[in-house]
């Protein structure tokens, strides 16, 4: 059984022409799948459908065999982590440390485990020196690293990243790529939207292309 399956999914924003048309694909919680395509073609919309933030006009999306229309966002969020294209949309805590601990505390982990995980993740994302900084005053690249860290610390089975390399310099892109490889090695999957062909070619094991509302596999 696929981890996530999209079955004949179509979508249009209210009063607008159809953006996604009869999308069918499945992903397993393994490997790095990249979704690419022209600006405005519906890539971000597709990712928001996958995590339940938008509801398909027609068709179904299943997660571990269960239709996500019957799941709460919190239930979906425990299985699928989502990092927005604009990281500011998901940063709201007064400090970098609290931003990373927020999700863990919501899962009601013992406080010593929360602090241990925060301490482990801060240096990995090179945020240790910013631990007490206000997230919205970080640089764009730092905000993105923080948003990824805050989601990744929750260990979702599938991580969905919308344009994760935007705002990252070459060195941090390299770190991100290596981090994604580690996630995959721990039997989890990554689905990323990107225009960064170099990054896609280097790290993705599968490439999907969205064009004119339809999805095709690279090389098919």
């Amino acid at each position: 059984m696929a981890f996530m399956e999209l079955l004949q999914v179509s979508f249009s924003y209210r009063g607008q022409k159809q953006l996604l048309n009869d999308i069918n694909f499945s992903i397993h919680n393994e490997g790095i799948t990249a979704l690419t395509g022209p600006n405005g073609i519906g890539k971000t919309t597709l990712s928001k459908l996958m995590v339940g933030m938008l509801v398909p006009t027609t068709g179904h999306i299943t997660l571990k065999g269960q239709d996500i229309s019957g799941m709460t966002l919190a239930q979906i969020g425990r299985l699928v982590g989502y990092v927005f294209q604009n990281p500011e949309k998901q940063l709201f805590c007064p400090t970098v440390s609290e931003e990373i601990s927020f999700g863990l505390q919501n899962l009601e982990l013992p406080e010593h485990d929360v602090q241990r995980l925060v301490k482990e993740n801060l240096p990995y994302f090179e945020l240790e020196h910013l631990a007490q900084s206000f997230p919205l005053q970080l640089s764009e690249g730092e905000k993105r690293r923080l948003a990824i860290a805050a989601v990744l610390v929750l260990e979702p089975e599938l991580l969905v990243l919308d344009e994760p390399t935007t705002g990252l310099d070459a060195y941090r892109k390299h770190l991100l790529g290596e981090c994604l490889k580690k996630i995959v090695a721990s039997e989890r999957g990554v689905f990323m939207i990107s225009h960064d062909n170099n990054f896609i070619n280097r790290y993705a094991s599968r490439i999907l292309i969205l064009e004119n509302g339809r999805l095709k596999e690279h090389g098919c």
Partner: protein
Amino acid sequence: MSAVVVNNLNYRYQKGGKQILKDLNFTMEQGQIVAVLGLSGSGKSTLCLCLGGIIPHYLGGQMSGQVLINGQDTAKCKIARLAPEVGIVFQDADTQLFSPTVEDEIAFAPENLCLPSEQIRHRVDAVIDMVGINHLRYENTNNLSGGQKHLVAMASVLTLDPSILVLDEVLAQLDAAVKKNVTEILLELRRRGKTIVIVEHELEAATIANRVLLLEDGLLVNDGPASLLQDKELLARHKLLVN
């Protein structure tokens, strides 16, 4: 007269906070495309905000030194007077789009200058055509994709016909075809004598520049010709190139 003069520029967002820019000194001549490179957090976006006068006018903080735009001191000049001289497209386009439709957004700045309606129409049409966003003209700005928002933000800046254009990581979110189009627009603007500052992490995107400034932890550590982009050893040393 140089288009941009930066003299001994220092900046902290808060008094006693981390120093973001450290004693920067450089000039930019009219018609140059200057690429500003550096790791995340090296001060590139802060420098852009200084060039546009947003620092110190809106963000305050602790600034010393001087930024001259076409001879005008940004600290002493009202931002309304600077805006037609320096157009900035922010890294986060969401922060500069607020009108209900793309057309309204692009018309907003010339309307604020109280230009005759015929002239506003002409400018809006010309910019929409130049940037290639006719299909988005009547769209709600909230419904645009990340890349489209950047194009609209760029169009809304170009409609004031600024002599200096500052693009903070605009190319990163554009697909290959749109990126090529925007690159051609920038080269055309340079031919028309505009001065352009591009902040980029993508070295390939920076190759249209004829000069490169390299920032590291707020310091200007290199200021040289575009051929710096071919110096793999230098780029690797500054972590701008990773094998």
